[in-house]
């Protein structure tokens, strides 16, 4: 097996915040020791509730947010040690598609100009005609026509805009793409089009995806492996099929039991979690999930569980195992 394209080791993002005038500042642990390996060509999904740190993880991997600890090895290089200029150049190889197709395009720029921006930044030698040619080719690749390049974002639909967002991320032919909830702002009918488009492009261009989502049915469809996050930590990770059929962590179990099923007569056990996700400002002691866990034991309150391999390539952080 070849070397993994991305190796994340104990990644941390702690935000200090002021408690009071004379108190020591506290730490908001948005990411608290995340380790993750992504192989070339696969799609790894990150799932979790709002506030679990999944978007922070995606943005920290690209250093759009600077990590406060840990390492990120991209193609064998620790990118947390690169200078700003080295990192800027590396961004041609690692890209991101944003959640909001409305906010992520400059309203004053034509689509063509938006798509030219990555090329002008990283391939400044290209002439005007070559730029236009690349942009038109990319527009066609994401299912649009060259004339869309002359339009402004407000003249396009949400689905078309997200196609532009994808085109902008892929026009430099990156190797790793972080997809930050790329379809959650879209209608369900458009979602499947965009998902299929992303899958086709992955095969065509040999891309590796980190797919961030809270929608488990989408994750099941698109990903090879899935990592479940809770309060800035990965609590379970494994092959998608394995995690969905045989969830280990009680949190994963609860998430999966909440997926709607199309058959109303099918009886199944629904695990309802009490309360909301705790604030990352004052994390519960021991296992962060013990406040809501239906299977919590005495040691969960004091002892933090480590991620252990339980099945084949199936890891979970829980004292039950």
């Amino acid at each position, binding site marked *: 097996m070849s070397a993994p394209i991305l190796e994340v080791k104990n990644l941390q993002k702690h935000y200090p915040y002021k408690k009071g005038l004379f108190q020591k500042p506290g730490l908001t642990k948005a990411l608290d020791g995340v380790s993750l390996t992504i192989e070339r060509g696969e799609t790894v999904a990150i799932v979790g509730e709002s506030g679990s740190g999944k978007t922070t993880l995606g943005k920290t991997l690209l250093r759009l947010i600077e990590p406060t600890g840990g390492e990120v090895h991209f193609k064998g290089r620790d990118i947390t040690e690169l200078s700003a200029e080295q*990192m800027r*150049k590396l961004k041609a190889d690692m890209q991101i598609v944003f959640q*909001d197709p409305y906010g992520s395009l*400059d309203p*004053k*720029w034509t689509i063509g100009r938006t798509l030219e*921006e*990555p090329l002008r930044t*990283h391939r400044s030698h290209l002439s005007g005609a070559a730029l236009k040619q690349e942009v038109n080719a990319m527009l066609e690749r994401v299912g649009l026509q060259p004339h869309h390049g002359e339009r402004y974002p407000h003249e396009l639909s949400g689905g078309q805009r997200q196609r532009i967002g994808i085109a*902008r991320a892929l026009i430099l032919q990156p190797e790793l793409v972080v997809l930050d909830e790329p379809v959650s702002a879209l209608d369900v009918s458009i979602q499947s089009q965009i998902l299929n488009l992303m899958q086709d492009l992955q095969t065509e261009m040999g891309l590796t995806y980190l797919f961030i989502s809270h929608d488990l049915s989408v994750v099941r469809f698109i990903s090879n492996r899935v990592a479940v996050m809770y309060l800035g930590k990965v609590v379970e990770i494994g092959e998608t099929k394995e995690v969905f059929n045989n969830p280990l962590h009680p949190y994963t179990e609860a998430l999966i039991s909440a997926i709607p099923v199309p058959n109303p007569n099918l009886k199944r056990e629904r695990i309802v979690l009490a309360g909301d996700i705790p604030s990352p400002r004052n994390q519960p002691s021991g296992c962060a999930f013990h406040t809501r866990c239906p299977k919590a034991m005495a040691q969960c309150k004091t002892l933090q569980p480590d991620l252990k391999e339980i099945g084949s390539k199936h890891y979970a952080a829980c004292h039950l195992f």
Partner: protein
Amino acid sequence: MNNTTKRGFPLVWQRLLRNRMALIGLLLVMIWIVLAIAAPFITKYPPNEIRLEHKLLPPSADHWFGTDNFGRDLFSRIVYGGQVTVWTGFVSIGIAFMIGVPLGAIAGYFGGVVSNVIMRIMDTLLAFPSLILAMAIAASIGPGLIGALIAVGIVAIPEFARLMYGQTIVIKEKEYIEASRAIGVKHLSILRGHIFINAFPPLLVQVTLGLGSAVLITSSLSFIGLGVKPPTAEWGSMISYGRDYIISGEWWMTLFPGLAIATTILGFNLLGDGLRDALDSRR
């Protein structure tokens, strides 16, 4: 409605022309600019020609606005004075724009110490009433057109810096800025390409309103003798000469330059308000 097909400049233009007050403002401003440019062709008398035998003549067919205490034709002087006013207005606001906007953009974009240093200096400048500050600067440079230009320009810098600062803070949090950073676009390109372009509409309004106050401050400086040196015709200094003749009944010496100042400022303000409405993308 054909609003859907029009965008950018044509749309703003169309909205502006539909606004009666803005149209009046545009007309007033245009009249003064055209008069200033056409000055040599529409005046009968040179503005500085002293003919004491014709002094203090009331308005007539020959001297539309009358003559002053040196027998100079007031119409000529007002039209030529408009040249000075228009010129100082545009140059000083141009200076303020070119210094204030980059300062505000840098302060807003980078934040931290840079922002504190720049914006506290701007706050200090804003703490003085603009006329007092302009007087102090003009007085320290010495009377003359250049001194007035610099004084008016410096006074207007913090207005532009603060506006741009606020705009930049809002715009830099937009996701399209993060998208550009994710691509690896350099800071300068982000500032120029995204932030400046998105901040431009309110800046344009500020330019128009700033031109109005620049006219007022320039005239005020000339009125107290800190602006343009005599005998150059300037509206503020003309009022200053006419001041002594109000009681003796030669009202035209103050009325016409006063009207010129008032209509110019009114024009710029109406145009600025109209532009603000026309550029409002929420409509």
